[in-house]
């Protein structure tokens, strides 16, 4: 069930990244929903499953970026391995840990991806420039991720309340 849910979210992230994001934002500050999904998969799944999901979402991100494929795939797999190695699964339930992991993970993915693409394209890599762009991207992605998380919490709360009312209404009748 979790895998199916993640597959659906991955498709939504792909669609949003391919269509809505370019229309609303341009350049380096585009939020990267596929990276967000990849980090989410790592936090959700333990072991190789998390790595494979991260790699698949990284490959989808590669397909939407110029340059050769495989860059985001490799970075996502390595980031996933690091997260799994450094953060025990019990700690991954904490909001602070999740936020920090996602934030750092996004920075690593953004910096690595931008730098690798610039280098493979033969363009000189300015670390300060790369870090600035990476920071902006990570921030915008984190902001969108937070907004989505809050929205999901609100929707879940509303759903619980609606579900809670029906049995009560039936009892009164």
């Amino acid at each position: 069930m979790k895998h199916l849910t993640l597959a659906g979210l991955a498709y939504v992230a792909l669609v949003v990244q391919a269509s809505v994001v370019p229309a609303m934002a341009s350049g380096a500050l585009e939020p990267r929903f596929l990276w967000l999904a990849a980090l989410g998969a790592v936090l959700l799944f333990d072991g190789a499953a998390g790595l494979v999901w991260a790699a698949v979402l990284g490959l989808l991100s590669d397909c939407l970026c110029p340059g050769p494929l495989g860059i985001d795939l490799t970075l996502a797999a390595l980031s996933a391995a690091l997260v799994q190695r450094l953060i025990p699964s019990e700690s991954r339930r904490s909001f602070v840990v999740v936020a920090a992991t996602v934030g750092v993970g996004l920075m690593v993915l953004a910096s690595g991806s931008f730098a690798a693409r610039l280098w493979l394209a033969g363009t000189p890599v300015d670390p300060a420039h790369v870090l600035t762009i990476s920071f902006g991207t990570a921030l915008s992605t984190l902001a969108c991720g937070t907004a989505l998380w809050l929205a999901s919490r609100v929707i879940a709360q509303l759903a619980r309340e609606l579900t809670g009312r029906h049995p009560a209404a039936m009892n009164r009748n």
Partner: protein
Amino acid sequence: MMPRPILPATILLSLLGLGFTLLPQDWSDALRRTVLDASRPGQRIARGVVSRAAELPLLSLHAVPAANRPEEVEVELRELQERYRHLQIECALVREQMQGIAAAPPVASRRSSEALIVSELVHAEILGEQTAAQWRAGRFLDAGSASGLRESALVLRDERPLIDRGADADLSPEQPVIAGLCVVGRTANVGRWTSTLQLITDPEYRGWAQIVKNTERGPVFAAEGILAGEGRPLCRLLRIRATEAVSVGDDVYTSGREGLRSQPMYYGRIVRAELQAGAAEWSLQVEPALDPTQLRTVQILRLEMNPARLSVGEGLATDAHR
């Protein structure tokens, strides 16, 4: 709880990533296309949702324009495919040249007495608009219809340009009309004294044509097609297969199928050449060499039997009687 071993998976996925980096461009493009195609249904839904949301009065969202990125990728892909086709065609042309296909244009017309059909040029003048209008009104034929002097009704009703030669000069319909070495059109309706002219830009004009490419080794005959008028300043060159080498600037001459003089006549130059993705033929536009409004005199190419062959035939018939 012991963490599951992830090192083998990490190494494998890293190697896979490296493998993807080294993929040939074609394969990468194919994978990108597949992913974008798979996302298209979702994109349509997303666009619909966003545009509906923009219409809501409570939201201050402006209508989100259609996603640029997938379309940009498609445009770039089409351009790359077109460029690939051009290169492919150029390679085929070079291969053909290396196989020793004829590289020289036909030399001067065959004036051998052995030719059965020979051509003769009949010079004519194009009547100016005012003169043509007066002619059509019958003002030049003062005697009127009572004297039997009457121009063909077909010619008089035809709105096309008039030339001052007709049946009196042994003209007939569908004869090529040229100006120097350039094709002007054909005779349409031939009257007693005048004929109408179907220009190559006439919507009903069709003629066999051949592309001539200017190469370093000289002009090279390329694909054959049909030149078609469209009632506009430019003509279209039809039936040129997508696999043929065509470029803007190529010249268009009459083809041997027209049965004209052995020296091909010039139609014009290709000014627009487009090859849509998946199309079987080129979309070509040709700019005629001559501006018909500037023409004053033309020549009508009249084909007739070689008198030399005629006299030989008569001689043989006389000998047979003996």
